[in-house]
C-alpha cells in the first residue's frame, strides 16, 4: 500500500503546527517585563520597559502643574511636582505590577504592567 506521508512530510507537519502555536505564544504568555505606562489627559504618552533601563533618567511632564518623573531600572516615581498636595510624590516608587500613582491636578497617571515574576503579588489594590 502506498504510504500517505513520508518522514519529511511528518516533520513538515510538526514544524508548521509548532509555528502556528508559536504565533500565539506572546499573547498567551503576556509581556514578561515590567512596563511603566504614563497617561497624560487619558492618553498613553510614554511606554517604558523598566527592565531595559540601564541608567536612570528624568522625564518632564508639562502639566500644568508640571511634574518630573524618575525612571530607574525596574522602578518609576514622581520625583517632584508643582501640585499643591504632592500626593503623587508621596506615592513613592512603583515597582510591582498594578502599582499606580497619579497627579490629579495635572491629570497624569502612572501604572506598572507586565508579569511580576511573583504569582503571590496582587493584580490590583483596593483602598
Amino acid at each position, binding site marked *: 500500500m502506498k504510504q500517505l506521508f513520508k518522514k519529511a*512530510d511528518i516533520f513538515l507537519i510538526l514544524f*508548521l503546527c509548532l509555528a502556528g*502555536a508559536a504565533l*500565539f505564544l506572546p499573547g498567551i504568555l503576556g509581556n514578561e517585563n515590567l512596563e511603566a*505606562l504614563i497617561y497624560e489627559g*487619558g492618553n498613553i504618552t510614554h511606554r517604558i520597559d523598566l527592565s531595559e533601563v540601564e541608567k536612570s533618567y528624568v522625564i518632564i511632564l508639562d502639566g500644568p502643574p508640571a511634574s518630573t518623573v524618575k525612571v530607574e531600572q525596574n522602578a518609576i516615581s514622581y520625583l517632584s511636582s508643582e501640585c499643591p498636595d504632592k500626593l503623587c510624590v508621596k506615592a513613592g516608587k512603583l515597582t510591582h505590577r498594578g502599582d499606580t500613582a497619579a497627579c490629579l491636578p495635572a491629570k497624569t497617571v502612572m501604572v506598572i504592567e507586565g508579569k511580576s515574576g511573583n504569582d*503571590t503579588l496582587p*493584580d*490590583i489594590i483596593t*483602598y
Partner: protein
Amino acid sequence: MAPTGNLKNKAGIAAACAAAAFLVGIIIYDTAGHTPEISKSGIAMGTVITEKLHGKNAQETAEEILERINEIESASLSRRIKGSDIYNVNAHAGKAESVGKNTLDWVKRTLEICKSSAGALDITVGRLTALWNIGDDSARLPSQPEIDGLLGAVGYGKVLISNGLIKLAEGQSLDMGAVGKGIACDEASQILDKNGIDSAIISVGGSILLFGGKDKIKVGIRNPAGAANDYMGVLNLKNCCISTSGDYEKVLEVNGKKYHHILDAKTGYPADSGLTSVTIVCKSGLLSDALSTACFVLGYKKSLPLLKEYDAEAVFITHNKSVYITQGLAGSFEITNTAYSAAGAENES
C-alpha cells in the same frame, strides 16, 4: 509546466498543515482563556480610574466606560458641578426638585441603606462635608458651634421623594461621595455586559469591579499604615465588587492630631469606631461602597447584622492591627504583612 500529481498532493498537504497549525494556535490561545488585553487609565470623579479588559471591542468599551463615569459625575452625582442633579437638589433645598431617573434610583437605594444602618451612612451630611472639606486645600478644623449649627439639618429621614422629585429639608445638602465610585463600578459592569466583554478589572478610586473571567483575581487590601501601593493582605475573588473605606485616604492634621474624611453624622466629627479600614465584598458597587462607609462608622460588632441583611462580606482592620473577617471570606483572604494578625472569622449564622 503543469504541476505533477505528486506536487499537487504535497501542496495540498502543506496547505492543510498550515490551516491545521493555525487552528492549533487558536485552540491553544482560546483554551488558555486569552483574548487581547486593553489597559486604560484616566481621571474622573476626582480620582484615578484604571481599566483592564479582555475581549472584542475592549478599546472602545474602555473609552465608553470612562466617558460614562464622567457623565455620571457631571450630570448626576457631583455636588460641586453646577447643573448636576445633586447640585440642583442642594441649591433648592426646601423645594421639590426634578432629577434624572438614574439619580432618583441611586438616591432611593442609598437612602434605604442609610435607614438600614440607622444613619451610620447618612448622605445628608453635605454641608458638614463642605465645612470640613478634608482632602481639599481649604480643609480646616471647624469650631464646635459651627458643627452644632449644621447638625440640626442632618437626617436622611427628612428627605422626601415622590413623583420623580427630591425635596430636602431647609438647610440640608446631599453628598453622594460615599456611593459615587460604587455606582461607577455598576455602570461599568452594565457596559461590559452590553458590549460582550470576556473579563475585566475596573478600579474607580480603589472601588473595584471584577467582571467575568475564569480565574480568580488577587485583590490586595491597602496597608493602612503603609504607602499608597503597600498592601497587608490579599483577597482571591471573581465576579464581585469590592470597596474599602479607610482613615488614611484624606487627612487633615492640626496640632499633631489627624482628622480623616469619614464623618459620623451623629457627632459631625470623623468617625471613631476603633477601625482604620473596612473592605466590603458583594455583588453591587453601590452597595459595597455604601456599606464600607456605614461599617466604618459602626465598627466591627455593630456592622455584622447590616452585612447579613445585604449578604455582604467584609474585612475589618482595627487600629491595633487586628484583622476580623466575615465567614464567607474565610477561604479567600490571606494576611501577607506580619504586622497584622487575624482576630477570627465571625460566624454570622
